[in-house]
């Protein structure tokens, strides 16, 4: 360019660069009608991320605190005969100052369903050994406690407790007698289905049990299923714990036999061999029989903890937070003479939203979500022919609604916190709410968006933990392959692109089913 051209341009630049002219008087009114008069302050992404981490952190704290129930069990030092046990979130106090057969009402702080009575006999020993003994691989005492609690958490369970010595049990509560052998005969007169809080008593052979917890639960065939827990001391003062089970009955009036099917020594003064407690071999060490019992117990409903039915079917809703990364897979560039190469880069941000779902049965369900702040970034680094680089970031803020089919299966039936895995597959519609273009970090608004639609396929995997009977905490991963139709043309022309998004999410869900 010649010197004259320079000077020529400069004359125009000096004359016009700061040229000012007042627009028409009515222009402001036109502008004032178009601009927002009140706009909520945008929540900064860092706060959203912070909130999502707090949310996930609280979930983990809740999760681990749930598993720490054993540590809350203690013997009251001031009153040695009093044991304090916290099972899950319940605080239970019992004392045995009066020795055997002391009847003590459980004090509960949270559960409204726990309306039975509990007898702790010789509780400073029993509770201690039953609940603090953790080194027995065959039967973790906390499993028993947890099993009782989790069964009680179901609306379809009730706790029935028995005193050892029926002669001292309040007669008003006695509505059932056991036969002289270890069978519990439930005939037509002893149908326990609708008799909450009933006490049962024991006959001769099992009356030396220290205490017994008797849980009645409707099984999936809608018939009664009894689970019993008991411990006792044998003649050598070894503490023995027992599992009882009954055979299921589909008929209310048919007999149901409940048998002691397994027992083992908790506090073994002489040896570490276990017992199988059959009717006649209750106190005979027999390792082989114990192994058989263990094998039998794999089918034993005592240690099964199915997902409560209120989580299996029906509506649920919740909220989620997701940390996600997105990248554009399109490599087409409309204006090749500008650049010779560019690199797509991953853009990270946090999203949040709400979800609503319906479980048809234990395995299948549907779920929809509304992601309110899902920003997909198209981050590109251009290298020009002159090796100069330009960074362009297109931030697309979407309102996304996926519709997902869900298949789930349970992982650990034996745990106090049933967990499951959900596989998700579905379609997603995204609506582009806002787009921002940053060219070398300078933001430009873009109002001209030819097409705001985004259609995609979603794949997902969730790990669900039942933390209360109606609340589930889930962590999971999502992948989305979507077609972005909004070809933006303000500064650089792009074609519609295929975008990939992957994210890690955490959610809290509440089941509405009673």
């Amino acid at each position, binding site marked *: 360019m010649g010197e004259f051209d320079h000077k020529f341009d400069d004359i125009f630049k000096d004359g016009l660069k700061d040229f000012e002219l007042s*627009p028409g008087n009515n*222009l402001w009114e036109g*502008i*004032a009608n*178009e601009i927002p008069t009140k*706009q909520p302050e945008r929540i900064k992404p860092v706060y959203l991320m912070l909130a999502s981490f707090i949310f996930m952190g609280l979930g983990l704290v809740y999760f681990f605190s749930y598993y720490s129930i054993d540590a809350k069990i203690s013997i009251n030092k001031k009153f040695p005969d009093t044991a304090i046990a916290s099972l899950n979130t319940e605080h239970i106090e019992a004392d045995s100052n009066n020795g055997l057969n002391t009847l003590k009402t459980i004090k509960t702080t949270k559960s409204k369903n726990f309306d039975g009575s509990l007898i702790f006999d010789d509780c400073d020993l029993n509770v201690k050994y039953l609940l603090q003994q953790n080194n027995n691989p065959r039967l973790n005492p906390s499993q028993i406690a947890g099993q009782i609690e989790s069964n009680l958490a179901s609306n379809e369970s009730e706790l029935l407790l028995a005193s050892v010595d029926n002669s001292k049990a309040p007669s008003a509560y006695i509505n059932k007698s056991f036969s002289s052998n270890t069978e519990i005969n439930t005939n037509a007169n002893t149908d326990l289905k609708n008799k909450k809080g009933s006490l049962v008593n024991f006959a001769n052979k099992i009356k030396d049990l220290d205490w017994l917890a008797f849980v009645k639960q409707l099984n999936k065939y809608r018939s009664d299923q009894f689970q019993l827990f008991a411990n006792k001391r044998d003649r050598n003062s070894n503490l023995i714990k027992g599992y009882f089970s009954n055979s299921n009955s589909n008929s209310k009036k048919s007999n149901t036999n409940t048998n002691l099917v397994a027992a083992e020594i908790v506090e073994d003064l002489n040896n570490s061999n276990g017992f199988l407690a059959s009717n006649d071999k209750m106190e005979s060490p027999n390792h082989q029989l114990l192994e058989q019992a263990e094998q039998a117990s794999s089918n034993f409903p005592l240690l099964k903890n199915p997902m409560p039915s209120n989580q299996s079917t029906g509506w649920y809703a919740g909220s989620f937070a997701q940390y996600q990364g997105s990248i554009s897979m399109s490599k087409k560039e409309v204006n090749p003479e*500008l650049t010779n190469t560019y690199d797509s880069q991953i853009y990270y941000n946090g999203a949040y939203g709400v979800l609503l779902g319906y479980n048809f049965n234990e395995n299948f369900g549907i779920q929809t979500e509304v992601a309110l702040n899902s920003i997909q970034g198209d981050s590109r680094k251009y290298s020009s022919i002159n090796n100069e680089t330009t960074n362009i970031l297109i931030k697309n803020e979407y309102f996304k609604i996926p519709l997902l089919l869900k298949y789930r299966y349970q992982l650990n039936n034996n745990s106090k916190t049933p967990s499951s895995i959900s596989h998700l597959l579905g379609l997603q519609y995204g609506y582009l709410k806002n787009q921002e273009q940053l060219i070398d970090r300078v933001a430009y608004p873009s109002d001209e968006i030819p097409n705001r639609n985004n259609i995609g396929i979603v794949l997902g995997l969730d790990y669900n933990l039942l933390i209360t009977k109606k609340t589930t905490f889930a962590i999971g991963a999502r992948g989305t392959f979507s077609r972005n139709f909004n070809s933006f043309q303000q*500064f650089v022309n792009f074609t519609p692109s295929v975008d990939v998004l992957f994210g890690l999410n955490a959610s809290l869900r509440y089941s509405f089913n009673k």
Partner: protein
Amino acid sequence: MRSNQEKREFEAMIIKGCIECKPKFQKLLYSTYAPKLFGICIRYAKDHHQAEDILQEGFIKIYKNIAKFRGDGSFEGWIKRIVVNTAIEHYRKSVSMYPILEVENSFVPQVSEKVVESLAAEDLMKLVQQLAKGYRTIFNLYAIEGYSHREISQLLGISEGTSKSQLARARYILQKMIVELHKKENLGEAYGRI
């Protein structure tokens, strides 16, 4: 006259008020910057009416996006860029394809620097407005805004070569118009003397 510190504080106050959508500050922003921005719009527009359209759109974008201003650079520079980009959008809406016109090499009008310098800002503005919109846009971007040909090519989606050739053509037309204007003025003076 405000000092730089006072100016920054004044801008920060306006920005905060506009982010909170307070009408008082929205009006203050308009009254402070409208004449400057309209001066830009009029350079890119063919007439007042079109310039007002560009200014209105530009201001609406500024208000809607003012929360995105990060304070990295000058606020005035940021709003000017938005208005320039709005003017470019207007231009791009009206032109589906860029006409590739060759520069006429046969004649370069001889206009003295002194003659050009003698022109008032209003005269310069009239001359620029008389350019065809393609030439006007590129001349504005290069000569007055200070964009490079590479940046112009990115903004307008044309090649650098096209940007250069259209700039040369714009200069040629401006010089030609100045020569003709000068001739008319000389004739007028001559008639006046008679």
